[in-house]
Every structure is written in structure tokens, then in C-alpha cells.
């Protein structure tokens, strides 16, 4: 067992443990903190895959920006108390049964699945240079088209966020 394997298993245990912590802890603040730890562990996995760019972006965007937003929302709305409404027993049971059935099906599928090897690509695929090249050659269309998506999201921010002044509506 090399250093790579040891790192992989440690990161995996952290990731799964913290992910469980997210859904099991009663306090929303703890959930968010667990989620941050999960993201860091996953970033570690990206590093092991030699995808430095993805690792950094994951930390900046998810662990940084989005989690700060989560914390802000929790603090501003004062959600840190355990005020989660309790679901009925029957609903809980139905959730467990359907979720468990999905888990069983997926496990059964994954157990017999064949994984095609993707080793044909060079090992430096995750470096920024290669990522940029792929993004601007092979995947240039999705890259450009996504601007329409962001544009409509920006319009949405204006339409929903701007105060409607009835005197202006001529």
C-alpha cells in the first residue's frame, strides 16, 4: 500500500464521515461546517487525480463562496435553533423504504458494472493549460452557449430584484 492509497483512504473516510455528519447533525451551523470539510476532502481527491485546477475551484467556489452564503442565510434568518418540523412516522417510513430501494438498485447495478478505462488521455489532463485548450477547442460551443444561460440569470436578478415603481409604468 503506497502513499497514494493511504491518502485515498484517509480522504475517503473523511469525505463520507463528514457527509454523514451533514445530514445527521441537528444544528444547521454544524451541518454547514461538516459540508465544508466534505468539500475539502473531495478537493483532496481531485488533487490525487492530478486535477489541480478543479481542486482549487472546488475550494474557492463551494467551500468559499457558497458556504459563506449558507452561513449568512442561517445567521440572518436565525435558523441555528433546532426548529425542523417533525414529519409523521408514515412519511419517514415511506422515505426510508423508497430511498433504500433506490440504494439497492444502484448497488446491484454498480456491482456488476464494467468500467471502461479512460487512461487513453494523458495524465496532465487536469492542468489549467490542458483544460483551457479543451475548453476552447472541443467544448467551445457549450462554453459560449452557457453565456446565454448566465445572461438570462442576470435578467432574472434584475426582474425579480428591482423595485417596481408604478409611476414609471407608462
Amino acid at each position, binding site marked *: 500500500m503506497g502513499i497514494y492509497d493511504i491518502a485515498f483512504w484517509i480522504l475517503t473516510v473523511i469525505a463520507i464521515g463528514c457527509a454523514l455528519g451533514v445530514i445527521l447533525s441537528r444544528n444547521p451551523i454544524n451541518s454547514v461546517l461538516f459540508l465544508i470539510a466534505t468539500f475539502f476532502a473531495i478537493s483532496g481527491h481531485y488533487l490525487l487525480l492530478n486535477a489541480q485546477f478543479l481542486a482549487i475551484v472546488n475550494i474557492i467556489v463551494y467551500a468559499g463562496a457558497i458556504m459563506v452564503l449558507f452561513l449568512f442565510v442561517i445567521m440572518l434568518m436565525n435558523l441555528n435553533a433546532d426548529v425542523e418540523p417533525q414529519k409523521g412516522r408514515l412519511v419517514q417510513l415511506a422515505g426510508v423504504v423508497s430511498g433504500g430501494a433506490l440504494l439497492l*438498485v*444502484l448497488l*446491484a*447495478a*454498480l456491482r*456488476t*458494472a*464494467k*468500467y*471502461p478505462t*479512460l487512461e487513453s488521455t494523458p495524465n496532465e489532463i487536469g492542468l489549467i493549460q490542458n483544460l483551457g485548450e479543451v475548453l476552447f477547442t*472541443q*467544448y*467551445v*460551443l*457549450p462554453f459560449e*452557449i*452557457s453565456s*446565454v*444561460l448566465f*445572461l*438570462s*440569470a442576470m*435578467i*432574472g436578478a*434584475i*426582474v*425579480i430584484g*428591482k423595485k*417596481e*415603481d*408604478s409611476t*414609471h*409604468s*407608462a
Partner: protein
Amino acid sequence: MKAIIAATILGIVMMFAGLQMKNKSSVVTLAIVLAFLLLGVNIWDLVATPATAPVGYFNNMLRIDRYALWFSTLMTGVTVLYTLLVGKEIQKVGVHVAEYFALIFFILCGVYILSCYNNMLMLFLGIEILSIPQYILAGSDKKNLKSSEASLKYFLMGAFSTGILLMGITLLYGATGSFNIVAYSFLQSDALNPLALGGVIFVMIALGFKVSAAPMHMWTPDVYDGSPTPFTAYMATVVKASAFFAFIRLFQVSFGSISSQWTVVLSVITAATLLIGNLTAVFQQSVKRMLSYSSIAQAGFMLFAVLAVNAVAWQGIIIYAVAYSIATIGIFTVLMKLKDYTYDGFNGLAKKEPLLAFVTTIFLFSLAGIPLTGGFMAKYYVIQAVMVQNQFLWLVIFGLLMAAISVYYYFRVIIAMYFKEGNAELHAPVTQGEKVLLVITCGLVILIGIFPQLLLSWI
């Protein structure tokens, strides 16, 4: 390809027009002109592209064939009709009229991507470009609490279904190592991989959500009911139809060779959609809510086309999309004129506005699938597609039974209009121009009913 660029540019033009134009009705006029322009670009694209083998663009990210171009053109035509009929009502929703139209142009961009995508990434982008403007349009009536609720509900549920779609794409990529929907290696069914099958199911659920198939339909009544009516008319027609086109494209082109693996699941979804949509529609008191359940029921019939993996299904989905869209936009246009959205609001409409009552009757006939209207031919084609497949006879019989139920709730409106005493109150008197437009729409419905081949002649 030209149309995608044009739709984006026209959307941006619309945005800047909002900066310059202070008069709402001139914004609407501009939107109508731009919609016609976009239709022109689509027809240019259709004429300029030779009817030979499909052309791939950008490393086969898009694969443009006759079906894609023709479907885009038809949907743009429906949008032109929509802007003409509903443009005036959009003015009343809120102050950002230009932005609403810009969003509609962006939705059209998504429609074009979904009609010609050849790559899972483009599918994802198309679905998102289709959906995000809708979340905004659903919540555009900010003073109305139900509109905000619709927007939030749609956004949260939509984000969840996007997650499921991405999970499905991930599984498919893991199984095949490719995003290209034509190159999927499980096209040969001996190389079948459970991982890929999981992906197929996830993608089916996510797309089923977008077309509001049961049991993923829960959001539909609240969202359609809560959204401002002009935007409900668009969501229920063009958007739903193009989500269906994306659905059929993926499941025929890509998963068609392994159809025996997923048709059983889809047939159960279809049956559930027909059952829930039709039975729940019977109990509604508001016509707007009834129409949203009816759109679920109609989705059940459109699922027939996805279920039948053959060439007739493609024709069926095109005819169904157009016939259903035109009739639904027509009936929503009439609904917007009324003050009261319940069945009682229609009481005595025939005496007050005979023409309005007559066109409504034709639209409802079409939705119910009465012969000589577009809806009949549409149902005929999708059912024929399943019959050719010769596999799901029980589903066809069940579908016909459900169509019979649908006659009940559609005809309740007609009975209210013609046989009940009352004073159907209108917001404003119907102008001459609107009457002409409604008669043209009504003529289109009948034209499709008599010559459905017209819609297939360009393929």
C-alpha cells in the same frame, strides 16, 4: 445554427430596447417584429440546408437534420402566434416588459439547442436555458403571492431535477466514456452495462419532470396556476413541446437500440400520467387549473411517441406539438379575457361574445381529440406509432378510455358557455384585430385536422 445565434442576438436587442423605450406597447410591437424576423431566419436556415445527411457542427456538438430545423421553425411560428395573441396581456403583468420578451427569446434559443443537440452537455445546457427564464417568468407578477410561490416551487423542484439529470449523465459517461449521444457504445446491446441503464433511468426521470409526467408532475398544477396566465400559456406549449422533442431525440437516437430495457418503465409512467392527469382534471373548479391538469394528460399522449421507437413517432410528436400548442395558446388567450377563471366565469359567454365562444369550442374540441380538428390527427399519429410497434396494446386501449374521460371536463366549459345562464364578465371588449387572430388560430387548428401532411411536407 443561424437560429441559435439570431435568437440570442434578438434577446439582447430586446434587453436594450427596454432601456430606450418607455412605452410598453411599442416594446410589444418590437417583440412581434423580432419574432417574425426570427421566423424568417429559421425559414432561411431550412431552405439553405440541403436535405441530405445530417450536418454536425463544433465537433458534433450539434447535429442538424431536417427534423430539427423543421421543429425549430414550427416552434418559432407558434411563438409568433403567441406574441401576436398574448403580447397585449404581457404588458399588464409587470413593468419589465422588454425583459420578459428577452427571456422568451432566450427560451427559444434553448428550444433550438434541444432540437438539434448531439451531446449530453448541450442537452443539459438546452434544458437549463429553457428552464431558468421560466423560473423568472413564473415569478414576474411580484405583487401576487401565488406567483412568487410558483416561481420558488418551480425553481427548487427544477434544480432538484437538474441534479438528477446530471447524475444520469455522469453514470452514462462513466459507462461509455462519451458525451456524444450517437457514439454511445451501448448502441450495440451486447455491450450493455448496468451503469448505463442506471443513467438511462435517471435521465428519463429528469426529462419526465420537465414534461410533467407522473409521478414527477407534482409541481405542474401549482406552477401553472400561480404563474401569470400569459406565461403559463408559453410554459404549457412551446416549452413542453420542445422538452418532448429533446426526450424523443435522446431516447430514439441514442437509447433506441436498447428500447426493450426501458419501454416497460416508460409505459408505466405513461399510464400513470394519463390516469392522474385526466382523473384529477375532472375535479377542478378553476379552468386554469383544469388546463394545467389537462396539460399533464396531454403529456401522457405525447409520451406515446417517445415509447414507440419508430419513424411514425417523430411525425406524431411534431403534429402533436403543433396541434396541442396552437389550441392551448388559443384557449389561454380566451381565458385571459375573462375576469373569473372558474367554470362559472364562462356562463353565458355564447350570448355575449358568440365568436369567442365558438373559437373556444373549436380549441376544446381539438384538445379533446374530436375529428376534423388538429388534436384528433395528433392523437391518431401517436397512437398509430404505438400500434406499429405492436407491443403496448393495453396502453392504447387505456389511452382511448382516458381520452373519453377528458371529453367530460373539456365539454363542461362548452356547456357553461352555451347552456348556462350568466353574465361572463370580460376585462375589456375584444377588439376586431384579436377576433381576426383568434379566427386564424382556429382555422389553423382545423387545417391541421384536415391536412396533417402539411406539417410533415418539409421533413
